[in-house]
């Protein structure tokens, strides 16, 4: 059987147009209610993050403590198991990290679009602000939160921290401690 070249070309053109049209369409997320935030602070560098946070810790996200909805806005409190308290006064091996987002009465999950909910078990480097004893929120939303894996630190895709964050966890810790002591830049 001979395949007509015109037919091959036509099929290719249609395929390309369909693929590019699909790529430019936002994927549906029916179980999620999107929230969009304006973040009060911009912390483009480690120095700015150190300066504008009460604590910097490395650890693991634990279980969800509880969820609430206040005036239509969902919140989730997570246990966070601290392995290394790099900056600030330690307030315990397990602290509470409070995040905007969580279950809503209509059955959907409210999530700030550029600040996905924490996932129990994930290892993180967090810059935190304390709003009550032992209770913290992440400074600058996605910017104050970095994933830590095998000794490497990676910024969130939505982070505005663009000022050469150290990729190595030990180097990151040294930088923070140096800034704290006044000898780092």
């Amino acid at each position, binding site marked *: 059987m001979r395949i007509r070249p015109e037919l091959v070309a036509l099929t290719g053109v249609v395929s*390309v147009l369909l693929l590019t049209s699909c790529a430019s369409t936002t994927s549906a*997320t029916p179980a999620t209610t999107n929230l969009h935030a*304006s973040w009060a602070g*911009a912390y483009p560098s480690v120095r700015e993050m150190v300066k504008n946070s009460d604590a910097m810790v490395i650890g693991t996200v634990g279980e969800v403590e509880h969820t609430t909805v206040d*005036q239509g806005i969902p919140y989730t409190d997570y246990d966070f198991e601290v392995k290394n308290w790099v900056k600030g006064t330690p307030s315990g091996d397990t602290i509470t990290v409070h995040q905007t987002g969580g279950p809503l009465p209509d059955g959907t999950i409210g999530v700030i679009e550029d600040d996905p909910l924490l996932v129990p078990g994930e290892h993180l480097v967090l810059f935190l602000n304390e709003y009550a004893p032992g209770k913290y929120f992440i400074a*600058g939303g996605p910017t104050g939160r970095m994933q830590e894996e095998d000794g490497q630190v990676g910024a969130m895709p939505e982070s505005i921290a663009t000022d050469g964050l150290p990729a190595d966890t030990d180097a990151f810790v040294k930088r923070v401690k140096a800034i704290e002591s006044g000898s780092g830049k």
Partner: protein
Amino acid sequence: MKFHHDVAGPSESRRLLVPLLAFLAALFIALSAAAPAQAYNFTGAKWTTVNPLRTRLSITYGGTNSANAWINASSDWTATSAPVSITRPTTGGTPPVTLSDQKNSSVSWDGLSNWYPGSGTTTNATGWLNVYYTAGYSASTRKGVAGHELGHIMGLAHNSGCVLMVSTTSTRNSCAVYIPKADDIAGIDALY
């Protein structure tokens, strides 16, 4: 058993060349269309129209500071060349957009918004100012936060640079951006 193979000769090659060039031209056009030059981003949700966009105030914590921020930000959007008119009607039923405030010291956002449904045609929405932060802001900065949230409610997502839809208030302040800029307006123009 005899096998017969069709082998393309020179004339057959020329026949293949024309559709191949047509395919490559279509690919170029499609990829160009898929990579827009503009910087604005969309949330994936929009109203049938924002001319008018009917809103109501529900202020609990910030008094006239919060109210004026929403009112003035609405006026700023309405004054642009985009097809937007943000109103606060007193008749015609409950407006679908609620402009509100909270006082919350346990978060790092100073403004927040959501809408239903999350994608497609929006039917209702709420915007909040966080008075914990905005109480200490200048009137211009507060208005910038309110205008940013109105941009989200209308369908604009975060963007970078000195535009109203940049994600952080400190960046808006350092750029002195408190009203919709050309790229923000172009985004609404493209949506509506």
